[in-house]
């Protein structure tokens, strides 16, 4: 089996991640309160490493959740800002679109400003700045497209947000762990990440960073393991608010901690360079294969994802053939990002998507190329 669907979830995981997951699940829960099966404070260690990875100074501003979708719902609900005061891009995932268009009190006509992208998935920051409405309060940017791999200029968008006094939220679901992310350097107020993609953790992990400018009301209440006599909160006092309620995913956090440490040890820059080389090989191959259209090939700073279509097959059929005839796992369809396809020219059927990880081998790529040559012959 050749796995080229790492943008959905990375596989395989490093041995250290699997060991940490197993050890945490198998270990005796520590302490008399809400301990996980670990002798260290996994969550505190994890937040320290996340702060190092994302370049920010305060680990306490990280909140762990079940993933990026949970985080985005939390941020959007917690901010309580109506959708028509948001500026988003055509590359956003349904984890952004559906909260903005469905949460009662948030989903307000005419909805957010949606800044178009070009045919590679790149959003022009100047166009974004010109598109802002007078009442815009938030810019929410997808850092790396999960369809084309296009990487947006988050630093430039952060500068726009500062110039206009806007909140800047950055969705790093596809970039965290495989591309440099700089919270403090880019002026990011809120950052969303998931654990099971390039951070190499397991499903059901992730979180968000809430900077000092973010006034976030809690949207979920319950046990937190401290001050159990307190039943009500003072919403005006940020220090009084607790965001991580209910029993937390300790084994998942332990696995994520191991994944983040693996990345920090290797370095994001090195991972990005290696994955870029793999993607360049795939792009070069597909662009020279007759009957194939590649989406995102010319995008600068390409992430570890690309999409393509074949003139003789629907994306669904091609992905089916790759999986069932050749044992190559890809993904097909709209990839939960419905808007981008209007701009890159892949409506209505979407694309076949391939995506690599640090564990994608040269043999994997050669197997894919051989299969595609045979299918298209």
């Amino acid at each position, binding site marked *: 089996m050749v796995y080229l669907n790492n943008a959905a979830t990375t596989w395989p995981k490093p041995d250290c991640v699997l060991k940490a997951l197993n050890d945490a699940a198998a270990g005796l829960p520590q302490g008399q309160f809400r301990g996980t099966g670990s002798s260290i404070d996994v969550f505190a260690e994890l937040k320290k490493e996340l702060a190092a990875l994302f370049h920010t100074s305060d680990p306490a501003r990280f909140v762990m959740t079940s993933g990026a979708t949970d985080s985005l719902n939390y941020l959007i609900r917690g901010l309580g800002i109506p959708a028509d005061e948001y500026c988003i891009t055509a590359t956003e995932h349904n984890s952004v679109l559906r909260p903005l268009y469905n949460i009662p009190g948030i989903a307000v006509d005419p909805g957010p400003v949606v800044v178009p992208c070009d045919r590679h998935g790149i959003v022009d920051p100047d166009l974004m700045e010109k598109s802002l409405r007078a009442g815009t309060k938030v810019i929410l940017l997808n850092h790396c497209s999960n369809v084309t791999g296009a990487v947006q200029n988050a630093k430039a968008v952060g500068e726009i947000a500062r110039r206009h006094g806007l909140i800047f939220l950055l969705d790093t679901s596809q970039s965290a762990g495989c591309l440099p992310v700089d919270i403090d350097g880019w002026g990011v107020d809120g950052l969303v990440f998931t654990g099971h993609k390039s951070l190499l953790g397991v499903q059901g992990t992730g979180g968000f960073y809430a900077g000092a400018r973010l006034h976030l009301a809690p949207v979920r209440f319950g046990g937190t393991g401290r001050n159990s006599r307190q039943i009500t909160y003072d919403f005006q006092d940020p220090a009084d608010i607790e965001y991580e309620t209910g029993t937390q995913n300790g084994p998942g956090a332990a696995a994520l901690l191991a994944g983040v440490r693996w990345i920090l040890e290797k370095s994001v820059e090195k991972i990005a360079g290696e994955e870029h080389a793999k993607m360049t090989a795939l792009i070069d191959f597909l662009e020279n294969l007759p009957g194939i259209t590649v989406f995102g090939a010319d995008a600068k700073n390409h992430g570890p994802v690309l999409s393509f279509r074949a003139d003789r097959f629907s994306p669904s059929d091609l992905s*089916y053939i790759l999986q*069932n005839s050749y044992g190559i796992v890809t993904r097909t369809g709209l990839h939960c990002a419905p808007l981008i396809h209007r701009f890159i020219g892949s409506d209505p059927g979407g694309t076949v998507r391939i995506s690599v990880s640090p564990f994608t081998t040269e043999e994997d790529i050669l197997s894919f190329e051989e299969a595609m040559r*045979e299918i298209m012959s």
Partner: protein
Amino acid sequence: MVSFMSIRYLRTEESRERCAESGWYAFDLILSEGMDDDFIRSLRQVGGSFLYLPQLKQPFFKIESDYYMLKGVRGNDFFRMAVHGEHTDEVRRVEQMLRQNENGD
């Protein structure tokens, strides 16, 4: 009518890859053993355009009409059927056809 006693229809399952057939309802029809060329050809009775790619490592077939689609790979013990929402009865029709073929009806 040709009998295909050796390959029996077992059951129908909702496809795990529902997203793959966006806007359609996808089902996997599970068989007792891998499909051969005769079985694949027998599926043409369902009706619709027939595509067969024998040059692939494991040949691929697809039968398509306006409101349903069957596709699969030779050697696999299942094929996929996707139907538009209002035509789920077509799945029952194909199941019935497979049972009749088993019995040589």
